[in-house]
């Protein structure tokens, strides 16, 4: 059975068909949510919330877009709602300056940690497009649909987000040099 047929069955409430379809996407969804909220436990809860919302609202999915895009859209909305509610309750910024010595920057783990921290400091819209484009590898069109904007907006956000991220990373001593050298290899 292909996805369309499974989705039709799922729309009638068939749980197995639904599980069959989402099995292809649930890990991607989990990843996006995890990058957005940055806490695994929260990401797990929100992934479940996303998939249940998808199941409940499946009748509203008309097949105009791809099911994958539709799922991503729910995931992004759920995560943004979560971040909005969480904001103000706790503002957690881990102190990472201790790691920022050039010799440590060669460590892959530290490099990743720095980049994720800088990513998390970006405005929500910027962070979202970078996660969808660079981590998840989605197309501009898909991102426009998922974030409910147009391609023009997506383009300008991607461009600005990358430039801001680059400038912030450059402020960290030695960081961009090391990374830059790697990029050229």
């Amino acid at each position, binding site marked *: 059975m292909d996805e369309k047929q499974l989705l039709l069955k799922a729309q009638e*409430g068939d*749980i*197995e068909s*639904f*599980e*069959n379809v989402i*099995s292809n996407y*649930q*890990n991607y969804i*989990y*990843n996006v949510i*995890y*990058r957005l909220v940055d806490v*695994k436990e929260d*990401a*797990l809860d929100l*992934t*479940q919330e996303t*998939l*249940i919302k998808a*199941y*409940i609202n499946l009748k509203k999915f008309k097949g105009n877009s791809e099911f994958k895009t539709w799922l991503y859209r729910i995931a992004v909305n759920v995560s943004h709602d979560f971040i909005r509610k969480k904001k103000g309750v706790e503002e957690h910024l881990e102190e990472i300056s201790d790691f920022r010595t050039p010799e440590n920057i060669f460590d892959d783990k530290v*490099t*990743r940690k720095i*980049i*994720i921290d800088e*990513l998390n400091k970006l405005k929500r819209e910027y962070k979202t497009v*970078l996660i969808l*484009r*660079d*981590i998840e*590898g989605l197309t*501009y069109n898909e991102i426009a649909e998922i974030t409910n904007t147009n391609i023009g907006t997506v*383009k300008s956000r*991607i*461009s600005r987000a*990358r*430039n801001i*991220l*680059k400038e912030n*990373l*450059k402020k960290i001593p030695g960081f*961009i040099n090391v*990374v*830059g050298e*790697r*990029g*050229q290899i």
Partner: protein
Amino acid sequence: MQCSKVKKLINFYMDKELSKRQMEEIKGHLALCTECKNDYYELESIKKLLQDMTPVELPSNFNDMLHAKLLEEKKNLESRRSYKKPIKIKFRIAAAVIASLFILSLGFKLFENKINNVGVTETALSTKSAVNYSSKTSISSGKAASDLKKDASQANAFDLNRGLDPDYKRKITKDATISIETDSADECYNKILNISKQYNGYIESSSESSTSDNKKTINVVLKIPSNDFEDVIASIKSLGDVKTIRINSNDITEQYYDVESRIKNLEIQEEKLQELLKKASNISDILQVEDKLNEVMTQIDSYKNQIKIWDNMTSMSTINLTFVSTKPQTKISKIFSTSFLNDILNAGSKSLNIFFEFLKYVFIISIYLLPFSILAYLIYVGYKLFKK
């Protein structure tokens, strides 16, 4: 191309989201301009870092947790949908109207019977109701058969999806509540002992009580192999005057095999964890794996318990029996009972009979309505398709 324009387009150049001409132009510029080239390398290396971010994996119990939640939601959805559908509500109203009409007519019948002498009509009614009961049970078994057919077509998909044994059996629990009036409750009790021996059943519990007018009542909970359920019910019916009988059957096939396949999955997980535990060398790894292993094993245990309970329920059926002696043990109360208490008893059994009569009519009416409701449903579906 100027540097400022390249800066604007550089990110789309990186994503290859530009026209061929623009791509060529920027490529040309980057070959010449070191500032833009450096810019580009920086951006590209950050993009690569993001791309190489190790993806996280959902934990292995995620699907089980989600499945449970989905089952819950499905229930909620179904109850909500049945409220929403206007057609169904209309049917409900129609059914209510018809039902009230029948209550009225039955009321008349009751009145009529009261005017008649009760003695003869009463026995007539009780045999009638006995027929009722048997037809009711045969209907329900018929329904089970059609369910079985319907599910048989789904069974293939079901098997493939869940890796079930191809020769799986439907899991149905059965129970009955029967109350019987007899000349001697003790005699009946002895006969029940024989029946339970004959069919390899057993008495789970029994109790005795006497009413103020010295009538003896015996309650028995009888367990009998499910395969012999119908036979046993038939022989119990012949023990005396059946006053009430209620037979329930509950199909738990889906839940049963669902839990069974969960156990299988968990056992695979357990195996993998055991292997991991053998390989694990540092203490924090070992502790983590052991934690997970514990979790999995507890889950398996609780599922297995559930299966055990269900196995008991499906292999042995429960029959709740009540025997009421009609003959009191002393003569004084006999005079009293024949004149007054019997009437009360008769009234009670009569109202029960009327009730079952009523149920029968409701059933017949719903059969009458069935073709119309199917037709209406088809029109509704057709209309929906047409609208699409």
